[in-house]
Each structure stands twice: as C-alpha cells, then as structure tokens.
C-alpha cells in the first residue's frame, strides 16, 4: 500500500537527531513489547509480513507519533484481536482496571479464545526457506537491465514507491528461497523466489535534483522486476 511508512525521498522531516549514550530501550515498556513480540513469533503466532502490514494500517499521525515500539504494540494488539487470541474488549477492561487500581483484575477465560493455534495455523516469522533453496531458478543475472514494475497494490508490498518504473542493473542475485511478502502478509501463500539487489543511478531516481556519483541499491523480489529491452 502507498502510505507514510514508505518514506524514501520525502522532504520535511528535518535533521537526523543523534542521541548520545543511547540506551537499548528508552522505557521499560519498549523492551517488554519487543520481547513479547519475539515470544509470540517463536510460537508461530504471526509472521514479520503480518507484523509490518499491520503497522502500515495505522493512521498516519499515530504512525509518526506513537514511537517505533508503539507501532509494534499496535500490531500485536490488532493481530491478537483479529486471530481471536486476545480481544480488544479484554484489553480495554484490563486497562480500566489498571486505571482504577483494582484489587483483583478480571481473569480472562482461557476457554473463550482461539488458543492454542492448530499446527496448520502456525507461521514462521522469517522469510528464508533454506530447505527450498534448490527449487529456485533465477530469471535475471548480474548485469541484467531491469525495470521495476509500476505496482500499486492495496495490500502489503516491499516494493518502495520511489523506484517504481525506474530502470536499474542487477548487482547481486540472491538465489535462495525467499517468501514474497505481498502474498504471505495476507495468508495467500509464500511464493518463494530470488531477491535481487538492483543498482539505480541517483539521477534515474531523483532526476536533476540527484546528488552526483551516488548509486541507490535496492533489494527487490523477482516479481517486482521485468526485463528492460
């Protein structure tokens, strides 16, 4: 989907502010959200594509204001709710009980939910299927000229907007079995395929405002590319 998460090339965000002696997590909740996500992933509850797409569905102001781990929290809550594992109503009730400093918060009913997941519902988090590498036959080779397809899917994609329609040269062929995020994010299959790193001269991408002697190198799924003749 076209949205604020696809930031490459936007103006207006000012200087990059570097924090001295930055801690790994800036608040306790950040570490909790990170580690909870990792535990849920390990248990096969959702994949990184579902995680990322859910974040893309945040309202634009929230995306920009809630913080990096605030986005993760948003994704976690929404996915758990949608999958019937923990409902929004349960979270809201617990929140109000915390707010009221309740003595004994309401215990959630273990039976009233879709848990544990069935084996066929489990999804790995990552995107590399090593056991399927042998099936992969790349369409393109190093040095091939390719044009990025002009795709505007409503759903998830990793095809960044700023290079759509642009012509580049394949510089690396990653001939392993990589999951296509566009389909897995929506539970429509893994569509294993190579990933290419493609070189774009900066002026192909940014026109006359490009800086001199810059190459933008973008990793792209095979389905995002077509041969340039």
């Amino acid at each position, binding site marked *: 989907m076209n949205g604020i*998460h696809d930031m490459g090339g936007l103006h207006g965000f000012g200087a*990059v502010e570097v*924090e001295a002696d930055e801690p790994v997590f800036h608040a306790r909740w950040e570490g909790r959200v990170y580690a909870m996500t990792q535990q849920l992933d390990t248990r096969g509850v959702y994949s990184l594509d579902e995680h990322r797409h859910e974040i893309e569905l945040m309202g634009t102001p929230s995306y920009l204001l809630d913080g990096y781990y605030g986005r993760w929290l948003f994704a976690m809550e929404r996915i758990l709710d949608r999958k019937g594992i923990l409902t929004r109503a349960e979270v809201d009730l617990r929140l109000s009980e915390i*707010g009221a400093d309740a003595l004994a918060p309401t215990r959630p009913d273990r039976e009233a939910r879709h848990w544990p997941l069935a084996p066929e519902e489990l999804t790995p988090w990552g*995107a590399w299927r090593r056991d399927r590498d042998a099936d992969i036959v790349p369409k393109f080779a190093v040095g091939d000229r390719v044009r990025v397809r002009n795709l505007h899917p409503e759903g998830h994609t990793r095809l*960044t907007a700023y290079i759509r329609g642009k012509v580049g040269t394949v510089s690396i062929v990653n001939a392993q079995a990589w999951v296509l995020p566009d389909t897995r994010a929506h539970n429509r299959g893994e569509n294993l395929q190579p990933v290419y790193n493609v070189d774009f001269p900066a002026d192909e991408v940014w026109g006359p405002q490009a800086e*001199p002697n810059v190459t933008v190198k973008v990793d792209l799924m095979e389905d995002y590319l077509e041969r340039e003749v």
Partner: protein
Amino acid sequence: MAHDHHHDHHHDGHSHGHEELERPWQAVRTEAVESLLADLGIIDPARVDEIVRYYEEKVGPKTGARVVAKAWTDPEFKARLLANGLEACAELGIGGPETEYLHVVENTPEVHNVIVCTLCSCYPWTVLGLPPAWYKSSAYRSRMVREPRRLLAEMGLPLQDDVRIQVWDSVSEIRYLVLPERPAGTDGLTEEQLIEIVSRDSMIGVAKLPVQDQGSQS
C-alpha cells in the same frame, strides 16, 4: 485513519483518556496486554525478562566489531566474509539457525557504503544489536536515499564528490554490514585492540574510523 482503534488521542489531538496516569499510555497498554497474556499462559514474563536482558546486555555492535577486526587481520577470512557473510560469521560463532542472510560490503577510498531501510528500519541485529533511534527516524529513512552526501556531511562525514556513495536500501530480509576502512595508525594493534576501535556508526556507514595515535602502543 480508520485504524487508530485503540487510542483516540490523535483524532482530537488532545487527550488519550488516560491522562490521570503518569506513565505513557504505551506503558499502560503494554502492562495490560502482558498481564493478560501471562494470565492466559501465552506469554511467560520471566522469558520476557530474559529476552530484554539479552538485547540490553549480550547483543550489540561489539559482535560486528569482532567480524571487522578479524577481516582486517586475516585476508582469507575477509575474502570468505565478502563472499558469504553468514558463513564467515558462523566461523566466529556468530549467528544461528534463525540468522538473517548477510552481505558485508567493503568501504574503500573510492567507494563509501551506507545502510538504510526506508520502509521500516531493517538492521543487522545479529551483528549490531538493536538499531539506535536515529536509524529508525523519519528523517534518516526519508533522506538517506535521496541526499546521502548532504546527510552524511550533516552527521559529520563529508565526502568528496569523487567518492562514489552506495546507499543500500535493505527492504528485503537480506541484511548488510559495512566493513569500514582500517584507519591509519593501527598497524601495531592486535585483533583484540582493533575490536575496541570499531564503532557501530562505521559499520552502518555514517562514520569513518579516525586515524589512531599509536604513540602509546609502539
């Protein structure tokens, strides 16, 4: 903006319904979710503690620095590293079955590499730990692909126009690590000493390593 379902404060811009609490709303929501998932046995809070501690204490740029120092001191390792980052790191006991595919890209006097992820904030956790806030910022993500020269200069790394800049937008599941140039004045350092001078920022590509004063070592 149909999807800010769980906190309305951005819609009116003014309140989030929990202003009576001193903690950030994210902290309160996190507590609610964690406590419920723990009640249900879906999350183990002790394991959450462990993971947090692991990322706070055990993972970080020191791992990447080990890779870099080894590459500087062992040409054959360097060749293997540039050919297959993942396998070479495994020689040092870095990584594991879940480790992301890794390309190590070498900075030279002619070519400068820098890493970004415009779509989220992909980063080589295994070798650098979790990314700093600036790497995840809108400013870095939006600008590095469009004006790397200007941004690097702002961040303290001016580069001449004859140095080619390669910006790696790592939007797939392949990860990148920059192999910085070994600075002058380090000929006499041991691999262990070299590890100490390799900065995180040099392995992202937003800094070079300064020339070292070897006076005290020689």
